[in-house]
């Protein structure tokens, strides 16, 4: 992961210290300090983390997944997963289908290796059976590209649904490698 903001933060810190040397004594909370504290409240709006990740779409025939790379931005480390999932929702490639375009991802939290994703599906967001199969695979591959994710639990409106779109089984959780 590239911490693009670090250098800028150091420069800013330096600048702030120069300015404050003129006589002001109020401590300045810099973005850099906030970041090293592991994401406390009040992160700077201008500082975002970025990551280059793999993301997945359906092909134009609805028969297989297409893998692409994309850069995601997120504020705190924990926000990475949500950002990664949201990348599944749009693509500029006319030949690729954004399989999660009909979802609203509400949250994606990692705890003890389990990534719990809570989402809603809009009425027009359901595919047929093969589309659901592709969507599930896209979700799995997106989540499991992060080594720290050992299992994935997908909730629909906060509940462990029987199935995502009514054709495939939805285990709670889905284990890595399954």
């Amino acid at each position, binding site marked *: 992961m590239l911490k693009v903001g670090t250098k800028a933060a150091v420069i800013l810190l330096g600048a702030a210290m120069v300015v404050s040397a003129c006589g002001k004594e109020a401590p300045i909370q810099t973005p850099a300090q906030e970041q090293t504290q592991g994401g406390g409240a009040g992160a700077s709006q201008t500082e975002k983390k970025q990551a280059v990740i793999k993301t997945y779409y*359906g092909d*134009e*025939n*609805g028969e297989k997944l297409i893998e692409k790379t994309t850069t995601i931005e997120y504020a705190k480390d924990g926000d990475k997963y949500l950002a990664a999932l949201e990348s599944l929702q749009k693509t500029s490639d006319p030949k690729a*289908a954004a399989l999660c375009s009909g979802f609203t991802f509400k949250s994606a939290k990692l705890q003890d290796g389990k990534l719990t994703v809570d989402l809603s599906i809009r*009425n*027009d967001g*359901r*595919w*047929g*059976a*093969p*589309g659901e*199969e592709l969507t599930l695979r896209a979700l799995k591959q997106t989540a499991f590209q992060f080594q720290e994710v050992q299992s994935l639990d997908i909730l629909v409106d906060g509940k462990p649904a*029987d*199935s995502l*779109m*009514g*054709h*495939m*089984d939805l285990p709670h959780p889905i284990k890595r490698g399954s």
Partner: protein
Amino acid sequence: MKSLLSVFTLLLVLLVVPVAAHAADNPVRLYLNGKELVPEVPPRLEEGNTLVPVRIIAEGLGSKVSWDGSTQKVTVEKDVTRIELYIGNTRAYVNGKEYTLEKAPMLVAGNTLLPVRFVSEQLGLKVTWDQITQSVFLDSVPAPASGGQPENSADSEPAGGDAGQAPNPASSDPGQNSGGGNEAAAYPGQSIGGGNGSAPDPGGSAAVGAGEISNSTGSPSGGSQNLGDARTGRPNETVGQVTPVSPAAIDDPKIPNIRSIRLIGDRLYIQANGQVEAKLSYLSNPDRAVIDLPNSELDAAINGKRAVQNGEVAVLSSAAVQKIRYALYSDKPSTVRVVLDLKARTDVSPVASNIANQLVFQLKNAKFKVVLDAGHGGYDPGAGSISGKDEKDFTLSMVKKVKGLLDREPQIQAYLTRSDDTYVGLDERADLANQLGADVFISIHGNKYTPNVSGEETYYCRDDGSVDLANLIHPYLLKATGFTDRGVRQADFRVIKKTTMPAVLLEIGYLSNAGDEAQMYSEDFQNRVAGAIVVAIKDFLNIK
């Protein structure tokens, strides 16, 4: 003493080798199933034929012997078998059928003596001659086929028949292929090896080969019966070869005999001479009902025929049963197996009998069970169509039409996983079908993807009859819909994965595609597709 009398209860001693000694000098000893018999008149050797008194053998086997002085006729009766012999006459009659004896019966001191060859050919008695002790051994177990090889190895067919395969009526034994795996467990088959060759001679092996030993009763129905067991995957079980057992063991008075097997109308009657219990199971490809009777033996005169190992009951006119085969299927424990070759799917249920030691089974025409699964429902609307309709309404409408047509088929009973707009869990849908013991499962769906994709897809999950069903139904659907052919595909959709019978999921067309969707909600289209599905189901189940 066990009665084995099947045709003739005459005791005849074989002359194995032209022995120099005369009968009077060397009294021939007589043994029946290991027990020595001491007749009033000893066996005689006459011109190369040995004759023995009939009465003692007949009575020893529990049959009734009567004498008609006016016609010089001896009648031996046992169950439904009637043997008539005339003194000095080489013609004998067994249930009216004429036989020619090598030597005419003799009357000696009130005893009728008969040639042994006739007895061994008719009775199913194995005859061995002990030269050293000059003894004749008669045993009710005939020698197995030479070499101990399965007699019908030429009839073997490969295992693993497919659900859609039509039975071959021309085959001499149609009951060979394994079923589709959804049959009740059949009795674990045991191949009874005859590999040890004939039963141990009581020391007289030197005498073998002289040409007079009749060591074969001839198999009554021309070969072993393949009463295969689908579940163990050994469709070529050979029965009819009986492991040689000692004569005393065969004649076990503790084991009841199966005396007759009869089909009268739609009821099967099995009569024993002791208490027997039945285990019922079914095999398919082709349909058979199997009744196992552990701890029983075949009576030597079963159904009036000589049949100690196996045989057939001819069925003249029955809607359900083509023929009935029976065999001594196992010797540990001694088990008789009765197989009904069914013409149509039939339920066989035991009913009470007020006759002692009789088992009665009621045969009833059974219907095929077809489960129709309308995808989604209730809070799961399925995919939204481009004109704003729900997939769940399309699927329910489709299954209702299919059921309406299937309800007119006398051989099919259709079931719906849901008949209204309620949600049913995926596992619940499969469980319903599994618990019903359904023959076919069809889940109907409408597809959705990006607007340019259109066409018909048929899915299967498992390698069993599901593939065949998918391949069979898909062309029917293509013809009825006129949609683009997107092929037969394999996928792990829950309902077709968890079911235990041939199962398919039909994606009739794309609700996201203008061309497909415009038709999918029309009555004409749905009726046409429903009709095609019904034709395909009937084709798959081999229903005319």
